[in-house]
């Protein structure tokens, strides 16, 4: 039942926060903070009791699992499950959620109630996505996550917000509908095979299908996930959405929402369609490599700092796609760390960009320059996260990238070598950002104030987290192990044969 609370608390908080704005403008902030903190406590409680994961019906190791009837006539149940993988991602979601509330404290002054309602409902939907074990419920939460985010961009965004919001909505909604078709198709195929009509993940696992059917259904799923991830060539909604969203929106988008795509690939695509996935793996890995290089090239060319960071996300998530389809323990652990590290470092970069915009009223880097002299703390922090995102050893992103590439090398050396080139281009865009923004001759008029205490506290937490991930990631691996074991139960190490061909 705790799992339902995990999902419900932010939703309830959102419902309370909306009318609370009528009472006092700051009330929604406190309510959101309280709801998310409480949620975090629930999660930590679940985690602390996770010493002995439960094993249900031979379906692997789960920390907690919940099954309630919902629409039994259609084989739909309210089924949630928490394993190591979901735990880490929910933790990331709540952490970044709390941070988003804090950084919106001064930035959002209009319609605070509705803003926090949307923020909390997006988070609730995301948590649902990470927990859902019923495909219908999964789709349901997938949509819950999407609509409030549309409002966040469309109502509190920057100058070109309507365009960006509609683009975001069309891409994710369109691909989501394809996924719905694929879910229905899978359920029907399963019914024809076994006679029961169900959306339960566990029952659908191992459904026997014609190779062609399996491939088509899988492509339906993959489309939704790679749009969300995003992989080239479905990435173009991302720079617009990230750039136009308010800071909290960018943080949640980059930090959490993109991970739902990776999570979907991990949880659903490969376990449900192992054969099709292995046939598709070379294509997916190629897309990953293209994403790494292409995203980095585009990031290098941008003048808008938020756009640069957005394209760097494309590059970083290319690594994730590469690692998922390498599908061995090293690469998958790398994927987990990469997701966490990317959430932290990119979130921090968006906060930095937001702080710069708040002070200089522009995102155009050609109008920045030499900020180090005036804003030493902000600049040092910005540079720290730029360096983290170029993958310096000792910081979290390196662990992720290295493990992914090492795992990929074992699966398919050529893709690993090509992916490693992304490390060079990453250096190029990260350093050009530092140069244009913080270094160089002072150009912009001296801005008012450096980061204030709440922002500094947030940044300190993020810095500590990324150093911890970089120097002692073992706890993360230990937590993720049970989750990855669940995924790999059906599909063991490696999708490809030793020579890089599908089996």
């Amino acid at each position, binding site marked *: 039942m705790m799992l339902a609370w995990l999902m419900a608390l932010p939703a309830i908080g959102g419902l309370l926060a909306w009318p609370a704005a009528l009472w006092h403008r700051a009330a929604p902030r406190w309510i959101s903070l309280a709801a998310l903190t409480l949620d975090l406590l629930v999660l930590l409680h679940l985690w602390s009791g996770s010493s002995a994961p439960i094993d249900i019906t031979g379906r692997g190791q789960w920390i907690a699992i919940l099954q309630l009837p919902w629409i039994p006539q259609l084989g739909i149940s309210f089924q949630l499950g928490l394993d190591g993988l979901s735990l880490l991602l929910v933790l990331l979601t709540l952490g970044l959620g709390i941070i988003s509330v804090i950084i919106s404290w001064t930035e959002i002054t209009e319609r605070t109630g509705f803003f926090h309602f949307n923020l909390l409902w997006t988070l609730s939907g995301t948590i649902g996505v990470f927990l859902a074990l019923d495909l219908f419920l999964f789709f349901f939460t997938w949509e819950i996550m999407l609509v409030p985010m549309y409002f966040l961009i469309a109502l509190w965004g920057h100058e070109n917000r309507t365009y960006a919001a509609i683009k975001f909505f069309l891409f994710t909604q369109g691909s989501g509908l394809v996924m719905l078709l694929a879910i229905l198709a899978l359920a029907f195929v399963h019914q024809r095979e076994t006679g029961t009509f169900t959306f339960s993940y566990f029952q659908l696992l191992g459904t026997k299908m014609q190779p062609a059917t399996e491939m088509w259904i899988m492509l339906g799923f993959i489309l939704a996930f790679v749009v969300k991830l995003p992989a080239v060539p479905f990435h173009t909604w991302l720079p617009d959405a990230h750039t136009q969203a308010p800071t909290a929106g960018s943080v949640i988008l980059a930090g959490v929402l993109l991970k739902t795509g990776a999570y979907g690939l991990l949880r659903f695509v490969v376990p449900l369609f192992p054969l099709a996935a292995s046939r598709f793996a070379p294509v997916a890995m190629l897309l990953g490599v293209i994403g790494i290089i292409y995203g980095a090239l585009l990031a290098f060319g941008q003048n808008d700092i938020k756009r640069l960071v957005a394209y760097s996300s494309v590059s970083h998530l290319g690594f994730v796609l590469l690692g998922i389809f390498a599908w061995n323990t090293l690469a998958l652990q790398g994927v987990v760390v990469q997701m966490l590290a990317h959430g932290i470092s990119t979130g921090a970069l968006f906060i930095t960009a937001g702080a710069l915009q708040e002070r200089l009223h522009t995102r155009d880097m050609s109008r920045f320059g030499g900020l180090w002299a005036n804003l030493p703390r902000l600049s040092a922090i910005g540079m720290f996260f730029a360096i983290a995102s170029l993958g310096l050893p000792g910081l979290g992103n*390196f662990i992720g990238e290295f493990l992914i590439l090492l795992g990929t090398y074992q699966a398919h050396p050529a893709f*690993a070598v090509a992916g490693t080139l992304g490390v060079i281009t990453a250096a190029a865009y990260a350093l050009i950002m530092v140069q244009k923004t913080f270094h160089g001759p002072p150009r912009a008029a001296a801005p008012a104030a450096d980061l204030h205490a709440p922002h500094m506290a947030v940044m300190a937490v993020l810095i500590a987290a990324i150093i911890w991930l970089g120097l*002692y990631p073992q706890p993360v691996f230990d937590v993720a192990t049970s989750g990855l074991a669940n995924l790999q139960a059906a599909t063991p190490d490696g999708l490809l044969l030793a020579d890089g061909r599908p089996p």
Partner: protein
Amino acid sequence: MLHAIWLVPAIPLLGAVILIIGCGRLPSLLVSIIGVGSVALSAIIASFISIGFITTPPPGNAFTIILWHWMAIGSFSPAIGFYLDPLSLIMMLVVTIIGFFILLYSSEFMAGDEGYSRFFAYMNLFVAAMLVLVLARDLLFLYAGWEGVGLCSYLLIGFWYQDPANGLAARKAFIVTRIGDTGLMIGLFLLFTHLGTLEIQPLMLRATQSWPAGSTMPTLAAVLILIGAIGKSAQIPLQTWLPDAMAGPTPVSALIHAATMVTAGVYLIARTHMLFALAPAVQMAVAVIGAATLLVAAFAALNQHDIKRILAYSTISQIGYMFLALGVGAWSAAIFHFMVHAFFKALLFLAAGAITMRLHHEHDIFRMGGLARRLPVAFWSFFIGAASLAALPLITAGFYSKEMILSATWAEGGRIPVLWAAGVITAFLTSLYIFRAVFIVFFGDLKTPVSGHYGPRITLPLIALSLLALIGGFVETPEGLGGITLFSKFLASVFGEAPVVSGSAANLRLLAASLVSLAGAGLAYALYMRSSPRFTAWAATPAVLGWRRFLFTGWGFDRLYNALAVRPFLAIVRVNRNDAVDYVYQIIALTCRMAHQFLHQSQTGRIRWYAGWLAAGSLVTIAISVLQ
């Protein structure tokens, strides 16, 4: 005692962290105490550890300590741990002691700079990263230090960030070396995938056990490691970043060139020498790259007029000697030259810094002159450094280390005296270019007024390093000159016994090499002290000028890379700035909009019009259903 080894990198790291958290608000005295003191402490601990190591060697002449396991995923379990053997011990001592002198010097050199505490934070981080690199037990941890020094070099080269040129030089250093790093990273993938560990010692053992010499795998692995080493050590073809790295403050150059960063590649190859021994072709390539770099850089150094650029090219060239030694399997000679080079190159840079500091940061040697009397300390230390670099016989340390390399080159590559010849020719050129600088800078007329004064924190490091540059070579002398082999004996547990070269032929070659460096100095005297008008006229003829310009740009490598890599990259970026893929979606959107434009004309809003269409549509539908 040996267990305290982790303190050696940890203390400078702690110093850096304190300075960073202090965020520029600490008083400058405290900053220099933390900055210099932490490295001093680390040097003291390193010295005690060394004494302990030498007096009571640990079993196997090597000591390992694991702080914690970085990660453990299946069989992949690299550790945060240190490995101390004679090789890493020498590296550690050089890094900490030279580092300490440079930091002491900087505490006065950088006084009054607005980024004083930032400078010491970066410098401490630099020393810490280099110590991690040389002491790491695992290749992955070594790689962490490897990238760490790259980052610190970026931060320090671009230290004066307000000038975009410095930023460009810094980025160039980082990105060019990162190209090499990528090779090393792929090398790590390959080694782990095929040998199942990244711990250096077992890795080397497994390589020798499971790979036959000359087979594909060790060759590939050695090539990848070599690419990494070339990048960090600024060898051809990735040498272009080093001359530009002069943009940073002078102590930074001293640190990069002497104690940290550029010698990392030499260390890496020495550390993995067993792998290179399995790949003779690659080892040959190391020697050839070293020889080529020697010559190319020495020629480029001949025609520079920025004092720091002369020294930069000389570093590239001297690292070439080390590569040459590594290539012919004279591992301990390479490390010996590394150590001696650290002494005299730190000395040369600090002396050059001492000069420019008194001349309002004038770097052009042709606007110096006559400084020998005005700046005696700087003159004598620069002169001693120059003599050691030029390997003036008997009295300088450089003579002994260079001699060891040349004799090994002859002995190992006997059938190929080309390498030996390259070494000897470069010895001549080295002597010529450095004494050219000495004569132009210190003699003749005074051209720029001298101002200011030095404190002891500048002179002390100069004197100490001068002593080291003179006597540091007596730990290893050729057979004909006493035959002391303390250094190679000490390293024997790492590299095996070095062959002893003796005989009258060896002595003859020794004599020849000594004469060559004296001849270079003599020629420099003849050309630049007595400035013959015929030479000046010859140097100004168009053909010669063209060559001089070519050499001045460092053989045009920068232009080549700009044309081959940088400009195409920028062009692609510029063309694709708005993301070509997005055009596809924009075309889809445009199609929808055009369809809308077309169809919305039918929405007139007139009810009779709609009714008419309704009737017509019904009529057609009924007609079709009736007539079928």
